[in-house]
């Protein structure tokens, strides 16, 4: 079974702190994604990566950065956390299957910024 793990289930941070969220997948997937999920809104893509050291902005990249130094690991960084970044953060990965990319998700990190 594909397994995607995220470093924390719950996180509480102060405004202005630098926050690191880590995601690891064990199925050698090429693609990895970071989303945030807020009530009443669909999953919104922050950043994605289709290869090591490659990254592309999603729909809402402002205030975030990412790092992919190894194929299995994709990190999301909040450079200076703000209260409007309080959310559920979901990491996902997928094979590059040529057009039917099913995504496999981690359990999510619920981040509260005070």
């Amino acid at each position, binding site marked *: 079974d594909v397994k*995607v793990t995220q470093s924390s289930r719950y996180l509480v941070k102060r405004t202005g702190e630098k926050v690191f969220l880590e995601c690891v997948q064990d199925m050698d997937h090429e*693609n990895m994604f970071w*989303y945030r999920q807020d009530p*009443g*809104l*669909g*999953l*919104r*893509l922050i950043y*994605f990566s*289709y290869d090591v050291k490659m990254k592309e902005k*999603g729909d809402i990249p402002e205030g975030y950065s990412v790092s992919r130094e190894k194929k299995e690991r994709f990190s999301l960084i909040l450079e200076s956390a703000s209260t409007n970044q309080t959310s559920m953060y*979901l990491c*996902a990965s*997928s094979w*590059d299957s040529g*057009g*039917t*990319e*099913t*995504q*496999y*998700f*981690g*359990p*999510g990190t*619920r981040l509260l910024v005070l």
Partner: protein
Amino acid sequence: SQKIEQNSEALNIQEGKTATLTCNYTNYSPAYLQWYRQDPGRGPVFLLLIRENEKEKRKERLKVTFDTTLKQSLFHITASQPADSATYLCALAKDSNYQLIWGAGTKLIIKP
């Protein structure tokens, strides 16, 4: 730009009945459409994928239809059970590779 609409109101269904959830999209017909299940506090889990040239797909008690004329997909759960209670998300392929566009999901409640 492409938008997905799923009923934001929770759907209450009696156990044993068929639950039907709707996913409408507004713009181009995607190459494929996917349905996921999400339980509270968890990540979504893939259920079914249907391609634009397929009218219907089945998996056990699940059935998905895809009507490109109506720009709509229907997701059916037959003989519903309380364990089917969850939020169901619809996602479709963006025009570029790798990315999906997501609906906000419909919460399904199956009453015993």
